[in-house]
């Protein structure tokens, strides 16, 4: 069963999305053969307080709770963020999302580190988003810089229980972080494949060779992006059946049972 680790519901503040409901996600998942999705509340990355977005997320996903797993947004700069994290745990979330660059937090500062450590202690992974859109495409007011690789390295070193899923990272970012960590630290970082290009450059195939298929996960970015991109990438990557199965679901499932 394919697990999509990077899906959302809700509007995107900088442009209209034709569809962004749970029903849309389920329809696309059926079309693509995706069994389960980790779902965030998209507009919460800009909310001063993401808690109402989380409430909406939990309520919206509840009817399809067997397939859509909530990934609430936490703002580590707000008082009481630990309570929000505990609510995420109570809601059976596999992970929480933190957006340091949009929450105006130092991405490797104490608040973010503390929240990653707290998430790890609760058994929750931390989802970090390098970017939502290519810099050439962004709205003029979308001025937040990309997440820097140094932030991922710092969080991976913060505590042995911290597990990080990084979405929308390009090849150079992945390599810089992976080879900038010890093997033990690198095992606690997973990468979605959405920003790793296929042929003719074959970035995904190269990375599977150099750092291993066990480091990657299947993430579509729906409803910002059409989900067809990830299966197309995997189809063209020339992966073994085992490597493909690892990326599609086994890595993330095994990683969560750490």
């Amino acid at each position, binding site marked *: 069963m394919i697990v999509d680790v990077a899906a959302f519901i809700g509007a995107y503040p900088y442009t209209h999305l034709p*569809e962004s409901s749970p029903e849309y996600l389920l329809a696309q998942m059926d079309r693509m053969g995706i069994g389960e999705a980790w779902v965030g509340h998209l507009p919460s990355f800009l909310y001063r307080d993401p808690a109402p977005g989380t409430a909406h997320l939990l309520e919206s996903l509840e009817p399809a709770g067997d397939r859509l797993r909530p990934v609430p947004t936490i703002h580590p700069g707000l008082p009481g963020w630990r309570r929000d994290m505990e609510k995420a745990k109570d809601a059976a979330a596999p992970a929480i999302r933190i957006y340091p660059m949009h929450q105006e937090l130092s991405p490797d500062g104490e608040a973010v580190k503390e929240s990653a450590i707290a998430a790890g202690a609760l058994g929750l992974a931390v989802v970090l988003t390098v970017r939502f859109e290519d810099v050439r495409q962004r709205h003029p007011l979308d001025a937040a810089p990309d997440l820097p690789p140094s932030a991922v390295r710092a969080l991976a070193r913060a505590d042995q229980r911290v597990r990080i899923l990084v979405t929308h990272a390009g090849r150079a970012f992945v390599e810089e972080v992976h080879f900038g960590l010890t093997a033990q630290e690198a095992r606690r970082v997973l990468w979605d494949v959405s920003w790793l290009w296929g042929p003719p450059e074959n970035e995904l195939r190269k990375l599977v060779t150099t750092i291993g298929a066990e480091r990657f996960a299947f993430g579509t970015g729906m409803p910002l992006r*059409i989900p*067809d991109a990830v299966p197309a990438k995997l189809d063209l990557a020339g992966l073994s059946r085992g490597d493909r199965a690892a990326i599609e679901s086994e890595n993330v499932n095994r990683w969560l049972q750490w």
Partner: protein
Amino acid sequence: MSHAELIDAHAHFYTEESGRTDWQAVNDARLEAGTLMGVTAHVASILGTWGNSSPTYFPSPDDITHGNEAMLGLARAHPGLIFGYCVVNPNYPDHALKELERRFEAGMVGIKLAASRRANDALVDPIAAFAAEHGLPILHHVWQHRRREWPGQEASDAIELVELAQRHPDTKFLLAHIAGGGDWAHSLRAVCNIPNVWIDLSGSGVDSGMLEAVLEAVGPRRMVWACDVTMDTGLAKLRYLESLELDSTDLDRIRSGNAKDLFPAGVFEP
């Protein structure tokens, strides 16, 4: 039109002068992926030496000559599978026209304009006139909504391409990589009523709603499937188009029929 035909109208290859040791492997990878995807024709260009001895988007005359020669060599080595665009730099008008004359005679099927000079500049006019006279399309690199100057190129946006297209109504223009990273909606507003501008669907972008917006703006008769440098996203967009349950004639037009109309008659026939 056969449903099996699939023409990639925006492809690139490399040479030993491209400044990368893996140039042959990358060329081979394109052909290998094309076979997997069912690509029946790669219409491609080589942008000089890709920055090795002159900038990719401001190639020197010598580098242009080298790239075009190599492109013709690839086309000759793969007859019926690889076709060439003639690259020119409008800042060298005499060289540009000489290259066009001899490369057209040698079998190149289109003209590639990258980002050496703004599309609406008068120096581009003789090139557009040549294209109309010889029935060649111009694939024009476009930055979808260029809000400022970006280093390394003098990129045009759709508004500037439209100015050129309106000055040359008998020339067929292909707006490059609508999914190439900029604001595609801005470009669609600019070109929707310009009948001699087609949309090349290539680029790394796979935004939800983009293909539907292109369909609505220009219709299936002005959409041309292509990959550019990310063939995986080309395949994704093709599959998504198939999922939209378009009329099969429209889908065939996007896959290959519109490209056949754009390029000189018969070039893709066996």
